[in-house]
């Protein structure tokens, strides 16, 4: 039973990553390869605050969100002027730099050794310890954040973002500050991406930089490309599918060593097929064309 709850926890974590990236990719039409960086910043900032400065869970969660939002400006303000390939490249560069800092700034992050013994979240005097309670805890937070992202997506703000996606020049002609709106969308996505980072650190009680690589960013992006973007169901479909896929392979009796590669082969091919034949993903709204 713990196995099922573990999978549910992972689905919740990736659902939050997918839904927050969806705000950028599906609503605003910006392809970003830096989502794992913000996920990692969330994990590291909250962990370091809890372990080195004795912060509680809630304050460190909030601080992680703030840190992630502030860092998003560093990359978004200069690079959101860039279009198409160039923006993707800039976000990729940011991802590589953040990973490099997490990996090499050994004095603070312990680099490749990782940080063990991260305290379990304690909220209102209750420690979330068993996998089941963690599942409930993370489910509540995921529902809260997911609900907020849903409301943002359907608010007037969300509709303006969609107008940028459909026709940037028309939106600018209607008096919208395109760059400003993109910076906001990027900041919101980064802030929400920090939340699953904090939850992941508290759940695993151990983090190291290899959870926040460029390939992880690619994986998060592929979740929403495959599931679909521009609405809520697309990213959720993608998350469930992509998290259950390796488990399915395991049930087929594939050895773990091959299954890890097999999973990536499948998702690489899925991206190709989706781009060619189903540009809106399995159940998305926005067509990549």
């Amino acid at each position, binding site marked *: 039973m713990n196995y099922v709850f573990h999978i549910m926890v992972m689905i919740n974590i990736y659902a939050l990553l997918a839904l927050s990236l969806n705000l950028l990719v599906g609503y605003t039409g910006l*392809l970003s390869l830096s989502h794992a960086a913000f996920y990692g910043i969330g994990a590291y900032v909250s962990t370091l605050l809890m372990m080195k400065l004795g912060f509680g869970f809630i304050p460190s969660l909030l601080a992680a969100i703030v840190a992630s939002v502030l860092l998003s400006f560093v990359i978004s303000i200069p690079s959101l002027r860039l*279009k198409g390939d160039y923006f993707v490249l800039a976000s990729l*560069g940011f991802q590589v730099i953040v990973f490099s800092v997490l990996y*090499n700034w050994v004095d603070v992050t312990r680099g490749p050794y990782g940080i063990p013994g991260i305290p379990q979240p304690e909220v209102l005097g209750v420690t979330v310890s068993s996998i089941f309670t963690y599942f409930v805890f993370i489910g509540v937070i995921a529902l809260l954040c997911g609900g907020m992202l849903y409301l943002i997506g359907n608010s007037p703000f969300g509709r303006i973002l969609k107008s940028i996606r459909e026709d940037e020049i028309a939106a600018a002609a209607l008096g919208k500050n395109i760059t400003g709106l993109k910076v906001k969308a990027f900041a919101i996505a980064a802030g929400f991406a920090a939340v699953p980072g904090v939850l992941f650190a508290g759940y695993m009680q151990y983090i190291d930089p290899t959870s926040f690589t460029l390939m992880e960013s690619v994986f998060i992006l592929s979740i929403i490309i495959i599931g679909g973007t521009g609405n809520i169901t697309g990213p959720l479909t993608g998350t469930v599918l992509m998290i259950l896929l390796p488990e399915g392979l395991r049930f087929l009796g594939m050895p773990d060593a091959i299954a890890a590669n*097999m999973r990536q*082969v499948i998702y690489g091919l899925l991206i*190709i097929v989706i781009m060619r034949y189903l540009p809106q993903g399995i159940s998305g709204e926005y067509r*990549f*064309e």
Partner: protein
Amino acid sequence: MLAQLLVNGFVTGCSYSLVALGFGLIYNTTRVFHFAHGAVYVLSAYVFYTLWNILNWQFAPALVATLTGIAIIGILIDQFLYQPLANRKGSPLVQMLSSLGLYIATINVVAMIFGNETKVLVPGIQPTYSFGTIILTQIQVVTVLSFILLFGALAIILHKTNLGITIRAMRDDPDLLSVMGVNPRTVRCVVFSLGSVFAAVAAVLNALDVGMDPNTGLGAVLNGTVAVIIGGVGIFEGAALGGIFLGLIQSLAIWQVSARWQDAIAFLLLILFLIFRPEGVLGLRRRTEETST
């Protein structure tokens, strides 16, 4: 010490440049962000390894077969992956994502067949040459010579032959090219085969030098991209300058900071160039906002 580091940086730069020249050739003419160039790179090294180390072919036939095979693979990737998407006149991001998908699928197939561990092609210590206080291994010398040879050949093709004129015309305006009665598909075939061969040469040389594993492709294509941006998008020869510049900067980084920060420095450079000089060192002033998406 510094001279040795700079020479090493130059050699690394030559290797980056080869990948970058191929990437740039493809990117400048077709606007395809060819992530799968990294897959081509990995594939070349493993094809050569299979022929030379496993099947025990002679060096020359193995090399020729690898380069020919990779040229064909380059053309096939274009035919079956990019052209159907390009014909839809869609966003280049779709091609970029498909390319990324192909990269992921390919390197994992390679990993499933050959394993994830590093493979060494030439065991033992390589013969070296010394020039004064500077020591170069044989393979480093070959790398520099290959770079000079291929760079020269590319420059001659681009500027002295009809083919080169066609390639440059396609860079400037693909639609006009078809109006002039040239089939863009032919040019694409040339560009993709040539570009892939450049990557293959770099991959084989690098594999002979330090060995290979399935994940080397990502670093190779990313460094190639950074080199193209630094040199200037739209200028074929710029990629060589960018590659050598990147190699030198990274060795200076080893000297001043530490080898661990090489990636961060390369990408910091990329971001700085994208923000402050998106047209690259050699490029004409043209605002990135104005280039088509």
